[in-house]
């Protein structure tokens, strides 16, 4: 399966989601925190009058928290019709990948990452980790 992925980085790694799932990409918007909510839910944002949940992918992938002065970018994706904002470090680009570049996650991968990673595309210089959007948001 050849696919087109929107890429972004988290703690130095390159991740990608299918371009069809992506609605838009935004610079950080003010977030309202949600006390009592699970850690991955980083707050609510106002996207042109619509209230969206923001999911911190670093928390979802068990990565260390972002530095306080590092402002996250937002990737708004549609999951089962509902828009959700993903917090990422930086936005990359749109890349075309080929099925023969794909490999499922290594057997040594465990924990959260194993649940939300579909696998890796072997790009020329680095690996592009493909996210299962639905799981990344729900986990």
């Amino acid at each position: 399966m050849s696919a087109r992925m929107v890429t972004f980085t988290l703690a130095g790694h390159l991740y990608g989601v299918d371009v069809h799932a992506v609605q838009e990409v935004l610079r950080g918007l003010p977030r309202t925190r949600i006390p009592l909510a699970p850690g991955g839910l980083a707050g609510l944002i106002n996207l042109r009058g619509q209230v969206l949940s923001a999911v911190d992918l670093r928390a979802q992938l068990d990565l260390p928290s972002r530095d306080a002065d590092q402002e996250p970018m937002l990737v708004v994706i549609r999951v089962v019709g509902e828009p959700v904002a993903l917090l990422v470090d930086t936005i990359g680009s749109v890349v075309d990948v080929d099925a023969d570049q794909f490999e499922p996650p290594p057997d040594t991968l465990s924990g959260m990452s194993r649940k939300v990673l579909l696998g890796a595309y072997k790009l020329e210089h680095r690996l592009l980790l493909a996210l299962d959007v639905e799981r990344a948001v729900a986990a």
Partner: protein
Amino acid sequence: MDEIDEIVQEFLVESHENLDQLDRDLVALEREPGSRDLLGSIFRTIHTIKGTSGFLAFGNLESVTHVGENLLARLRDGKMSMTPQTTDVLLAMVDTVRELLAAIEAQGTEGSVDVTAVVQRISSILDGTTTPDPEPSAEPEPPAVAAEPGEEIVARRNVADSSIRVDVELLDTLMRLVGELVLTRNQIVRQAGEQEGLELVRSAQRLNLIATELQEGVMRTRMQPIDHLWSKLPRVVRDLGATCGKQVSLAMVGRETELDRSLLESVKDPLTHLVRNAVDHGLESPQDRVAAGKPAEGVLTLRAYHEGGQVVVEVCDDGAGIDPDRIAAKAIDKGLRTAAQLAQLAPTDVLQLIFLPGFSTAAAVTNVSGRGVGMDVVKTNIESIGGTIEVESVIGRGTTCRLRIPLTLAIVPALTVECAGDRYAIPQVSLLELVALDADRAATAVEDVNGASVYRLRGALLPLVRLADVLGVESDRSDGHVLIAVLQAEGKRFGLVIDRVLSTEEIVVKPLGARLKALGTYSGATILGDGRVALILDVQALARRALTAEALERGAASVAAETQRATGEHLRMLVAGIGGGRRVAIPLSSVARLESIAASSIELVGSREVVQYRGAILPLLRLDRHLGATSERDGDDLVVVVYSVGSRSVAIVVDEIIDIVDEEADVHSDVDDHGLLGSALIRDRIVEVLDVRAAILAADPKFYTAPEAEAGLHDQLQEAV
């Protein structure tokens, strides 16, 4: 115009719309004569008009559309094919229909429009006797109302052209956009304030005004007067009254009260049910009414008004009222509540039991109200739209059901508060009042009941819940000030301690995802003036979370007591007989429970009578002896009034509980007897008002170890004297 019935109005609007569609379809049909779709559409339109006109007894209209329908049916089924002649005839029919509608609109009747010519033309085509028509064009018969064509046109404009149908979804979209506009306006206004340019500031102000007006306008488009619902009720009441053999006059107050269209729909069924209930169960038969000294004709009053950002709708009857004892008996009978639970409830709370699932008060289920839709369904329906329902009743005088419905679902008035630097919205529906305590007062006024904070609100203890604790955040209020939002949810009252009160505003409610809803803390989110999102607190869920079940019960009791006090000038009195025909009134606010205990359970401690009650020892006071009367009660059980302050209780033995009165009791202090505060005239009888404090002290001298606990009540009683 005024005398035209509303149904006719609707019929006219609808028909005019349909006729326009018909014209388009007929013209299109000429281009594709065989189109089944078009023929089907035309057929349906004419069929609708025919049906309604028959129903409304417009005979001419019916006969024209009837033959037209026959012709169209044949065309549609392919039994006949379109010819220019049939098109002409059909157009002529449409024109005749138009004329008839115009006449109905102008005069309320079909007037003298002649339809025979058209009917004949259509019939002849149907019969296959295609008599060439002298006027094959679509020229209709000279209209009878043509004498005043100007007026006719104006009249039509009034009904059909002055209103349009708009998809509610479109209105919702507009509403959302307006919300956006308001936010953007706020940003512009703020930025303009920082700039030098006077012109920009002026423009910003204009924008401000226009946006506000636009917002109001768009909101109004969704509002409709409640009369839309009510207009159908006189008929319901009339028919039902006839079926039940009751005479009912229906009064409506506040027909013009407006509420959101979508809500109007949801209120329709519950309201109809309440009205049916009132006629069927509430009002008595004419004979019973006359026997009770009331006019034979019962009065059912519907009342609607706006109050505190809500619409209140009342259904009142002047019937027999609901007897709380019967409700209580029924609740026990059906296993919905235990006797002990009921003993703790105030009579008004007992009445609310009729909303429990599985409760039906009608002794015999009639085919009118007893159709499986109980009051619990009414309550569920009302609550599903964020409303509440309560019932009030005075035996012999009638029953009032009161619905409180939000004006609109999308926009609710709310209080915005701050806690730990975040802002939250609390719907005004649940908010009773705000209490602000400065550091000095807070230090003493916020007390502690074994670790649970309470605040003494006008004498009653209000459990306090710290929002920061509930949310697990760190409050940033360190100056000792305490701000309490007194909230009411599920009949319980509690105080939510917050950091700051910001403002009251109308907020647009945005739904939350299922995951956030599941937290049981937030009911939604909203966007505030500066574009930031704020969470809306779910007060019901907060109450459930923060207050334990027991606290809730206690809360209910204290709320009941508090409401009695809050009602002000008059106290509710429990009237008890103590033998010798003497009646004693005990302020109900001091009564915790009414119980019946076995005489054999009385034990002696020294010279005092005590009784074991709920694991505690209760000193017993025989009121007859205390007041120098002689009990006339025989039997092996005693009626006791349990009076509690804090953890101490005493049991006051009386002969019988006679009544609970809610009337203003004028207490005269002319009686200088031991143990009495005075006498009062209650329901035409002299009743002695008990000096509770003296009575309690007689039973338990150490009862008032915390003297101020009683002071409030005592003062109140003294004031009453």
